[in-house]
């Protein structure tokens, strides 16, 4: 039996719900024993595990220390979801005076102890595997658990949502209908859900960082603007679902 842990940081639980879904299958339950998962298990301490799934981004020192201790006790760490990989929608507050942000919500902002910027998990600890998505595709989690138990791992696929559209023979919403779509710069894995619903991809799997440079992104943004999206709106999408890459692009850093 492999020992598995599930750790949650700042997030909505959507990704770990997909892990729960995976753990509902009998063949997986027979091979994995859950050692840590506060949402569904009465256990307080994180012990040694073979594989851990980490969901969410880091908002404070406590979470940062926790994820470092999780890394130290796990043989194999899987960062799941856009929050863990890129920062998630909560990154939309990054770059703003944190006191202003706190005052918008809390009558007593001084009680709230958080970092001024959101940190993706992959900025703090090494991930052995990342599964993007907001939320992650449950089938990808099931596939990983089945392959891992056989001594293998999923083969990484470096492509954009466009690849999925083409394979499913969807008419391109961007080219054929002129609908602004972030598919060309978004990491694949969702199955092109938004185009299948006649709307443009809004980039929730994160910006495809592995082969697109700042110049390409700028050209693409220009095209989106020509199709009617405002620059502010494009920034919302890039920052909200691809903060880590967005930050490096806007700072002009080399990715």
């Amino acid at each position, binding site marked *: 039996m492999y020992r598995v842990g599930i750790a*949650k940081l*700042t*997030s*909505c*639980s*959507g990704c*770990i*719900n*997909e892990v*729960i*879904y995976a*753990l*509902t299958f*009998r063949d997986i*339950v027979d091979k994995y*024993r*859950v050692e840590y*998962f*506060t*949402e*569904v*298990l*009465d*256990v*307080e301490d994180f012990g040694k595990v073979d594989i851990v799934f980490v969901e969410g981004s880091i*908002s*404070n020192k*406590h*979470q940062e220390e926790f994820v470092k201790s999780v890394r130290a006790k796990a043989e194999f760490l899987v960062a799941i979801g856009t929050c863990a990989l890129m920062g*998630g*929608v*909560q990154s*939309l*507050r990054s770059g*703003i005076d944190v006191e202003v*942000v*706190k005052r*918008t*919500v*809390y*009558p007593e902002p001084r*009680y*709230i102890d*958080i970092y001024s910027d959101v940190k993706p998990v992959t900025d703090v600890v090494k991930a052995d595997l990342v599964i993007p998505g*907001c*939320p992650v595709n*449950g089938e990808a989690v099931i596939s990983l658990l089945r392959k891992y138990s056989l001594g293998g791992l999923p083969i990484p696929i470096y492509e954009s949502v466009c690849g999925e559209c083409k394979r499913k023979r969807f008419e391109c919403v961007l080219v054929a209908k002129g609908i602004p779509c972030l598919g060309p710069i978004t990491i694949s894995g969702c199955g092109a*859900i*938004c185009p*299948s*619903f*006649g*709307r443009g991809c*809004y980039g*929730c799997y994160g910006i495809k960082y592995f082969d697109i440079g700042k110049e390409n992104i700028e050209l693409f943004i220009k095209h989106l603007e020509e199709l009617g999206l*405002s620059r*502010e*709106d494009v920034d*919302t999408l890039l920052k*909200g679902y691809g903060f880590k890459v967005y930050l490096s692009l806007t700072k002009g850093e080399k990715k």
Partner: protein
Amino acid sequence: MKTLLTRVEGEGSIVIVEKNGYIDSVVYEITEAPRFFEYIVLSRDMERVVDIVSRVCGLCGVSYSFVAAKAFEKCLGVDVDEKVDMFREAIHLAERVKSHVMHLFYMNLPDLVKTKMFTDFLQRNPEISKHFQNVLLWSRKAMYTLGGRFHNVVNIKIGGVYRVPDRDSVKKLVEELNNVSKSFKEFASFILSIKPPDEYTKRSFNNIHLVSLYSQNSRYPHHNDKLYLDKELYTISEFFRNTVKTGQVPYSTALHYRIKGVESYIVGPLARFNQHYNALDKEVRAFMEMHNWKPPFNSVLFSYVARIAEIYNTLLILEDYLDKLSIRYKTRHRYRYPC
């Protein structure tokens, strides 16, 4: 002494401070890191807001997207075709089945059958687990068909939806509902037949207020812009602007909502069940009473009973809605901003 709260949505702990062998104080500490949705939606494009707020909760994101779309529609004076709105309600109801059944199996059931975790139950009682799985997998299929995925659906927009599914896939959902309902009743009968632990009845909230949505046309409520505070009717905005006051404590990230700043109230399935029991379908009430369950319940620990009644009622409504949608829906609404 500090102990984590487990098998609940959200993150928190209970801290017990002891002095000279006596309990000095008990602190209910919510540790979940805030995500500041109230701030991050400011000045965003409205359609983006509908997608962003679905990330408030991975279990019940449709509630947030649906209500955000409805709020914008109200502000902008956008009328939505009745059938399109019924379709959006169907997405919301499918999510209610998903969210409630997940709560029941993963969080409530292990307490009732005294196991450490649901996986123990899966191995110990595969037959009942199979019935649960049938309901979960159907709700997953319904969410995919109607909303695009299990969480963070992509099919709700201001003024309607992006796409209605093809008639055959909706018909298939309807055809499968009969077996799913049978499975649900088996699963529910099992849970309702378990004698709850004694401590469930010891914890009561006799003096707490109940807040739940207004029941239109005597139907069991699931969305509305009015609500009941006990028996008094309020508009949502009136209630949150004038009746409720928020506060904080130094040890918690939670915002405490209190009536006039002091009196507690409960919301959710248990409040709805206690306040609108008679609006449940008579078939549902007969089922609950056959298992000797009837409101009022004075402990939040009985919310699992309310969830069972709500799932049953929701499956009946969904059968009706999906049946209507599979026969004669068509999109007539075109979204536009009035000015």
